[in-house]
């Protein structure tokens, strides 16, 4: 069980902000911290890893106290057992992939752990390569593998896939999910990517202006829980145009722009840039497999949501 309760005054470009975060993560649980950039998400991870100092609060990981302002405890990052995956990966350019992983070993005799994790993350063939010869996705995998080798008490992922293209993202999301399960690691993911959070995490907490807002399973938190729809997609409003008495919304869903019409009163309070759900009821969607050389019908769904 991981409990944290942290307070810190942040000086950001938009003025001062009080970061005030209380949360807990059960053993083996995958929790996401969602919020706009500048909300203090990364600072929470840095405080957990010991790279930033809270003004006050407490961090407790599986019975160990890492930080306690009241008791004057503040373990240095070296003694915290936090597996932090940096946004820029922070791989050591002077070491091979294997060297990067071996660097993370606490016990230098435990080389078999490096081999095990190289294998699990499909990096065996790249073991002798240097980071600057790897693709973005490969670097990301090495960064994750290195964090796993250090045998952390908690895995901290800082926007781990933000620099990757959508296809690579999906593949690595699966890989992160399977590694997290395999090693049973309590994990805190910081992200502003809804898709990532939906796919990976059991629970999500929203950080807005330094405070924890809504929390719960992603499906519930992002407003979908109360709809009795059959299909639901999340997207971002790109444009709202007026056409007679109706409004035409362009919504970006993944990489597709979808245009829908709506009555003005139905979209009250929705503006350009807002995250929205596009829901449709009682229809039979067609599902196609995207393949080179033309789309092929694989399945005609029966109209029921597979999640139901």
């Amino acid at each position, binding site marked *: 069980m991981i409990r944290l309760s942290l307070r810190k005054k942040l000086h950001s470009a938009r003025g001062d902000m009080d970061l005030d975060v209380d949360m807990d993560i059960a053993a083996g649980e995958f929790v996401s911290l969602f919020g706009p950039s500048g909300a203090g998400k990364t600072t929470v991870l840095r405080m957990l*890893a*010991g790279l930033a100092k809270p003004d006050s609060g407490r961090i407790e990981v599986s019975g160990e106290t890492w930080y306690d302002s009241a008791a004057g405890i503040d373990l*240095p990052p*070296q003694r915290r057992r936090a597996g932090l995956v940096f946004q820029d990966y922070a791989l*050591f350019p002077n070491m091979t992939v294997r060297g990067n992983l071996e*660097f993370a070993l*606490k016990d230098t005799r435990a080389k078999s752990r490096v081999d095990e994790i190289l294998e699990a993350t499909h990096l065996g063939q790249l073991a002798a390569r240097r980071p*600057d010869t790897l693709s973005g996705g490969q670097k990301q995998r090495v960064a994750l593998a290195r964090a796993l080798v250090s045998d952390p008490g908690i895995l901290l992922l800082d926007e781990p896939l933000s620099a990757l293209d959508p296809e690579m993202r999906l593949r690595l999301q699966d890989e992160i999910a399977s590694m997290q399960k395999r090693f049973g690691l309590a994990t805190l993911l910081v992200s502003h990517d809804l898709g990532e959070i939906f796919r990976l995490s059991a629970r999500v907490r929203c950080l807005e202006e330094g405070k924890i807002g809504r929390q719960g399973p992603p499906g519930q938190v992002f407003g979908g829980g109360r709809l009795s729809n059959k299909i639901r997609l999340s997207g971002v409003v790109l444009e709202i145009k007026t056409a007679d008495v109706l409004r035409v919304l362009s919504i970006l869903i993944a990489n597709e722009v979808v245009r829908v019409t709506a009555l003005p009163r139905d979209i009250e309070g929705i503006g350009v840039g807002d995250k929205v759900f596009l829901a449709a009821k009682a229809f039979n969607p067609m599902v196609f497999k995207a393949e080179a050389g033309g789309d092929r019908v694989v399945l005609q769904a029966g109209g029921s949501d597979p999640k139901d």
Partner: protein
Amino acid sequence: MPPFDFAPIRLTLELAAITTALLLLVCIPFAWWLSRAPARIRLPLHALVSMPLVLPPSVLGFYLLLAFSPAYGPGRFLKDHFDVSLAFSFPGLVIGSLLFSLPFMMNPLVAGFDALPKSLAEASYVLGKSRWQTLLRVSLPNLKPALLSGTVLAFAHTMGEFGVVLMIGGKIPGVTKVASIAIFDEVESLRFASAHYYALILFVLSFAILITLFAVNRNRFKPF
């Protein structure tokens, strides 16, 4: 061939080698610290370290000579407690060269430390490594171009110094008479042929050093 004394050349190379080695020892931790110091400390210190770039060597030499003199505080202290006099001695030359070549070692190193992503050191701390281990295994190995530039520039610059050496060392053969002083000395005595020899040797050495620096850096100066 006129009588030719190799001692000044040997002395020059010795002085440059010792100065460069000491500068490396001093400047690596100093540059590491300076690159992470807050701006209010960093700015004045960086300016102070860079002073020899703009200060006339004779000014530096003049103040060093006063400092070394047994008539004033620091020199008297050394004389009274250790019976050491630095003026007109080889150790005195080394101290002068250290100060004079300091910016040539410091500036590439500070720039190198600045250019290293902060997250590299942080990743090393999170993975359980101490500051010292991080410096030796992560920071320095990724600073090879900066280390090489600093070493070569400090060495070459020490080889060529004249004003400071003349002020604090004079031209005692075998002790403080380095090659650049020897050239001046030979010309003054109208022995142009041996002045040519010294000058040519310094020219070739300097050129070879720069060629090496550029050749190595062409392959090394790559952003990660």
